[in-house]
Structure formats: structure tokens, C-alpha cells
């Protein structure tokens, strides 16, 4: 139980470190060591910590707890093979947590980061179309049923590739340094994270680590199916490296372009779901 | 379940919806848009009414309440945003409105109490409304709302008596009848006090 949580957070942070390393190497820089993000989390956890004078203290601290809590819950949901609707609900609620991070401090940078996280709601809509597309094939949204379906019919990656691409883009939009990571772009200092320092920032690191692990693990489970745990870790790493390549070679889009691109993806996915609805018995 | 006329009515409702949305799209003035939303509300009630059963009746009431409260909230926002704070002038100068209110209101209230229950509340409320409308009164929302709230609680208590102590049904009937009388009366009389006075 607790070992899963600690492992997920640590492995997720390791993946994020690898992400930075790959981006750096693609861009011909040496890059930080792979375990840099874990070191970051530890470093932040023993820095001196307080709550800013203007902040809404309860909310300021509460969102950190909620953030860690929801992703721990998401990890258990994925491990237990429960409904993927829950997982995606948590994914969308992460937006509210980001929003809370941004607004609770009173800092203008945090506020704009939070507002941007809300307007990037466009990135969540492909998710629902993905769910609908999966539902057309499997007739169930329980993860264990989806895995069982794939054991019979082969991986969904080959059966419904557009859905896989849509979820790939969804994961991409949550990774740092990517084309869609407008919530923490540099003109906003650190976006919604700006005013959460010290221990609170260490909490954010745990959130990010667990989130990365859960999303990639869910991607593997939903689109490739059951496999030994080590194999899942290997495939997750491969998926992450491919995402890092995308992040390394694309510029960060402006907020409106980001929303437009995600909107176009949504439209394509709606078209795909409509075709499925037409074709499927 | 589907009555033959249903599809015809549905067609009309959809047409009305089209007209309403088209009007909403064309209109740019804030105030007129507010008025048009009421048109849309009515169409949504028509959709429910088309069901044409007792259920429809039960469903329309909450729909109507929600629509009305949204309308009131929005008009309040509009009033504040446009800065309309001046209380309206004294109403119509009609002789009857000076002399009659007392006796008419008393008659209506007494008759309403005799009727009791929901319809009695409406009649008595009409009397109070008429009185307040003619004689004028400060907005005392909180006072009236408190009375209405307590009577609502009594109404609920009466329901619990029905369920738990059915042998006292007569007491419960009287209690709920008078409580709903007071509640409906209070709610209706609110309309009579709405003239932008100090809202305490």
C-alpha cells in the first residue's frame, strides 16, 4: 500500500528527471542528472517554510493535501482496475487543484497560472471522446474489463489508434516543458506554483511524480493491456521518452493557440466517435 | 405513453424555441436580452407541460420557481451594474387606492384564513399584497422571510406527525393548513413591498 505510493511518487519523479535529460540531449545540452527531480523534492522539503501574508491560509495548505490525496486515490483506482471514469474525473479535478494553488496566494502570477489552467479545459474534452470510443468497443469502463477485452481481442492501441493518440495528447498537455504547458510558462515565473515554496513545493513534487506515474500506467493498461509489472515500467519509460522528443522539438504555444490546437483535436475525435457510432452495431 | 398530439405540440415547442433563440441571438441590448430569457423560460415550461400528466404539473412548479429566481437575481445584477438606485416615485394617484385597501385587505385575509391551506394563502396573500402596494412600506425582506421560514418548518413538523403519530392526524392537518397559509401569504406579500427601500 504505502510502498506503492512511495514507489509511484519516486518513479514518477525519476521519469520527469529523464524527461528533462532527454529534452536537454535533443537540444544538445548536458542537462541535469536523471534523479534531479527527486533531489528537488527532498531539497524543497527541508527549506524554511511559511504562508504568505496575503494568502487564504486554509486553502493554500488544503490544496496541497487534496492534490496528493486525489492522485494517491487515482493510483489505487488504477491498481484495483476500477472505472476509468473515476481516473479521468480525478484528472479533471487536478485542474481545480491547480486553480486553487494559483488563486489562494493572492499573487498575480499564480492567479494567471490558475486562470490559464481553467481555460485549458479544452484539453479535457478529447478525454471524454476517448472514453466514448473505448466504450463502443468494450461495453464497459471498468479497467479490469478493458484489460480482459484486450486479452481476447488484442491491444486497443491497434483497434482504436485515434483514441490512443488523443490520450497521448492529453498526457502531453500535462507534462512540463511541452507545447501545451501554458500554466507554468516562463512569463508567469512558475505559473500556479509560484507562491508555493518550501514544504508546499515538495508536496507539489509528490503530486507531479504520482500524476506522471498514474497517467502513464493508465495509458499502458488501457491501450496495451495486462503484462508483468516490470514490462509495464519499461513501456511507460518508452512512452515518456517519445513524449520528451515531442516536447524537445516543439515550441510552447501561446495560450490561445494551445486551446485552438486542442479544440481541433477534440473535433477530430468527435468525428471519430461519430463514425464509430455509425459503424458499430 | 405518447399521446397523438404530443409530436404536434413538440413541433410547435421546437419552433418557439427556434424563434426565441433567434431573437436572443439578434438582440444586443442587455435589458432586452433579460426580457427575452423569460420567453425562453416559458418555452422550457411548455416542454414540460407537453407531457400532459399529473407528473407534468408536479415538475412545472420547481421549474417555474428556478426560472423566476434566476430572473430576479439577474434583474438585481442589472440594476446594480447600471447604477439604478433611485427609488421609484409614489405610485398611481387613484382615490380608491387611498380609501379601500384597509377593508379590502381585511376581507381577503379573513376569507383566506377561512379557506386555509395553499389556496387560502394565495387569497390572504393577495390581500396583504394589495395593502402594501397601496399604502407603501419599507422593504422588510428579512422579517417576512423569517415568518415564512418558521411556518415552513411547522409544515414539515406536521408531516412528521402524519408519519410518526398518525392518531393525531387532525392536529397535523390544522397545523399544516395554517402553516402553508402563512408561508404562501408571506411569500406573496413580498411582492407588495418591493419598491427599493432600505432592505433590512
Amino acid at each position, binding site marked *: 500500500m504505502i510502498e506503492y505510493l512511495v514507489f509511484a511518487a519516486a518513479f514518477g519523479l525519476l521519469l520527469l528527471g529523464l524527461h528533462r535529460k532527454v529534452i536537454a540531449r535533443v537540444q544538445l545540452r548536458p542537462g541535469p542528472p536523471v534523479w534531479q527531480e527527486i533531489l528537488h523534492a527532498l531539497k524543497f522539503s*527541508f527549506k524554511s517554510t511559511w504562508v504568505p501574508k496575503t494568502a487564504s491560509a486554509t486553502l493554500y495548505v488544503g490544496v*496541497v493535501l487534496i492534490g*496528493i490525496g486525489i492522485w*494517491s486515490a487515482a493510483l489505487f483506482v488504477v491498481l484495483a482496475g476500477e472505472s476509468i471514469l473515476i481516473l479521468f474525473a480525478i484528472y479533471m479535478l487536478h485542474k481545480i487543484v491547480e486553480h486553487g494553488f494559483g488563486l489562494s496566494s493572492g499573487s498575480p502570477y*499564480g492567479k494567471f497560472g490558475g486562470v490559464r489552467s481553467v481555460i485549458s479545459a479544452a484539453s479535457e474534452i478529447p478525454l471524454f471522446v476517448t472514453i466514448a470510443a473505448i466504450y463502443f468497443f468494450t461495453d464497459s469502463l471498468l479497467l479490469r474489463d478493458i484489460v480482459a477485452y484486450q486479452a481476447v481481442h488484442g491491444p486497443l492501441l491497434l483497434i482504436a489508434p485515434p483514441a490512443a493518440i488523443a490520450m497521448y495528447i492529453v498526457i502531453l498537455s500535462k507534462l512540463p516543458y511541452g507545447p501545451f504547458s501554458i500554466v507554468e510558462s516562463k512569463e508567469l515565473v512558475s505559473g500556479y506554483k509560484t*507562491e508555493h515554496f518550501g514544504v*508546499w513545493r515538495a*508536496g507539489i513534487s509528490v503530486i507531479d511524480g504520482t500524476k506522471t506515474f498514474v497517467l502513464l500506467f493508465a495509458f499502458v493498461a488501457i491501450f496495451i493491456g495486462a503484462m508483468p509489472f516490470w514490462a509495464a515500467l519499461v513501456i511507460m519509460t518508452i512512452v515518456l521518452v517519445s513524449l520528451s522528443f515531442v516536447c524537445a522539438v516543439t515550441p510552447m504555444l501561446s495560450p490561445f493557440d494551445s486551446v485552438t490546437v486542442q479544440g481541433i483535436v477534440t473535433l477530430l475525435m468527435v468525428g471519430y466517435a461519430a463514425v464509430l457510432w455509425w459503424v458499430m452495431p | 405513453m405518447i399521446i397523438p398530439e404530443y409530436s404536434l405540440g413538440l413541433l410547435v415547442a421546437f419552433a418557439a424555441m427556434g424563434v426565441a433563440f433567434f431573437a436572443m441571438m439578434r438582440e444586443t441590448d442587455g435589458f432586452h436580452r433579460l426580457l427575452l430569457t423569460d420567453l425562453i423560460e416559458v418555452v422550457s415550461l411548455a416542454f414540460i407541460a407537453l407531457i400532459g400528466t399529473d407528473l407534468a404539473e408536479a415538475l412545472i412548479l420547481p421549474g417555474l420557481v428556478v426560472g423566476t429566481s434566476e430572473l430576479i437575481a439577474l434583474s438585481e445584477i442589472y440594476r446594480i451594474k447600471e447604477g439604478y438606485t433611485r427609488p421609484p416615485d409614489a405610485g398611481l394617484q387613484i382615490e380608491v387606492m387611498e380609501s379601500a385597501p384597509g377593508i379590502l385587505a381585511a376581507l381577503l385575509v379573513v376569507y383566506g384564513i377561512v379557506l386555509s391551506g395553499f389556496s387560502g394563502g394565495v387569497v390572504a396573500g393577495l390581500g396583504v399584497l394589495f395593502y402594501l402596494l397601496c399604502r407603501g412600506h419599507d422593504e422588510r425582506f428579512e422579517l417576512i422571510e423569517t415568518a415564512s421560514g418558521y411556518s415552513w418548518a411547522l409544515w414539515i413538523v406536521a408531516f412528521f406527525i402524519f408519519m410518526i403519530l398518525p392518531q393525531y392526524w387532525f392536529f397535523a392537518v390544522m397545523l399544516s393548513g395554517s402553516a402553508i397559509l402563512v408561508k404562501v401569504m408571506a411569500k406573496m406579500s413580498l411582492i407588495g413591498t418591493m419598491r427599493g427601500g432600505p432592505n433590512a
Partner: protein
Amino acid sequence: MKRTTITYGLAASALVIVAAWAALAASLIPLWAAETAMVIAFPVLVLFLGLWWRAPGGEEDIPFIGY
């Protein structure tokens, strides 16, 4: 927060986690109960652990408003 409060909070959350883990291992409680306990206690543990070994706190200040 006072040092003792933090110590108590840390101890309490660690205790909850250990208890849930042990009770699950002994199959005294169902899986979902243990998971719920973890989900509640783990975030508290993370924050209190940080607060417990952090450097001394500073004065509260107004947020960063620009370079």
C-alpha cells in the same frame, strides 16, 4: 505551528498508515478501507515530514510581484 504539534501530527499520520497496513496484512479490514486510510494519511505524512525536518521558518511576507 509549534514543534510538538508537528511531531504529534507526523506520529499520528505514520501511525494511521502503519495500522492500516498491518490490519490489511492481517485481513482485519477490507482493501477499500485501508486505501481510504492511506489516501487521507499519506498527504498529511508528506507535509508533516517536511515541516518536521525543515529549516527554521521565516517572517511571513507578501507574494513575489516582479523582478
